[in-house]
């Protein structure tokens, strides 16, 4: 089962390794990112960050969807990481069984005109369009940086900011 699908441009990093994986008690982490699936060096660095006892696999978004549709994936507690809202939307549309769609860290690495949704989430116009579509598929999609932070529904922010 997919305990959470998180959008995080840093993919696996300190907050994931130390905080989220502890909170979710995971069997495995699935990184779904086309560029990383092609980049061995980045894969090596990401795998180093995974806590011992947790499996990790790095796939293109298409291959990650195939993996997550395998019935055996249902028996594992999985945390799926994507880098962009667009990728989250692609997975969300293909996978009906995601417990929680989470927006973590987005926008610090992007140089473009952005709208600030929170301290950790700044989105381009294209990402806002994707977020609106994502909220239609998973209405409970929420911004939450750490498990101890309050969940802020993306749909509430879209309304509040008039996006």
């Amino acid at each position, binding site marked *: 089962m997919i305990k959470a699908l998180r959008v995080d441009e840093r993919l696996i990093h300190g907050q994931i390794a130390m905080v989220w994986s502890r909170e979710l008690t995971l069997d495995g982490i699935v990184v779904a990112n086309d560029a990383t699936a092609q980049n061995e060096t980045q894969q090596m660095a990401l*795998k*180093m960050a995974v806590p011992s006892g947790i499996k990790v*696999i790095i796939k293109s978004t298409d291959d990650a969807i195939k993996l997550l549709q395998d019935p*055996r994936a249902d028996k594992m507690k999985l945390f799926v990481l994507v880098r962009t809202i667009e990728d989250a939307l692609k997975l969300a549309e293909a996978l009906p069984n995601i417990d929680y769609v989470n927006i973590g860290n987005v926008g610090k690495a992007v140089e473009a005109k952005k709208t600030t949704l929170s301290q950790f989430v700044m989105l381009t116009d294209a990402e806002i369009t994707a977020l609106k579509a994502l909220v239609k598929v998973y209405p409970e999609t929420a911004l939450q940086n750490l498990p101890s*932070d309050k969940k802020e529904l993306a749909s509430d922010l879209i309304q509040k900011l008039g996006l």
Partner: protein
Amino acid sequence: MRRFIVASHGDLAKGMASTIDLFARDQKNITYISAYAKGDLDLDQQLDAALAAIQTEDTAIIFTDIKGGSVNQKIAVKVMDRANIFVIAGFNLPMIMEAILATTPIDQAYVTKLITVGQQAIEQVKVAAPDPKLNDDDSFLN
């Protein structure tokens, strides 16, 4: 209540506060003491205030930066008669994170375990070439 103090020479403790905030926000049970830093109160005053906040029903760990330092010496002497307060010298981030995120009661056994966590977190880093077998669906799903 589980309580923690992080104490250092200079601003290392303040820096730790800023780092911890990225991983565990709004921790009300941690006090950071930067000794001899510009603009800060006298160390004894800071320490006495922090120690006075630890009640007899609390348990506490004080992390100091280095055993031989005056910060550690002062603390060790001030808490020598307080069985509910433990002092660990030579802190690191993984050790403090573990202490903050856990809910395990603080006792001698826990303090010993925490020191092991901190020691094991110090390791040489070598990037390993990926084993392609480890990235196939079957080995992940089984």
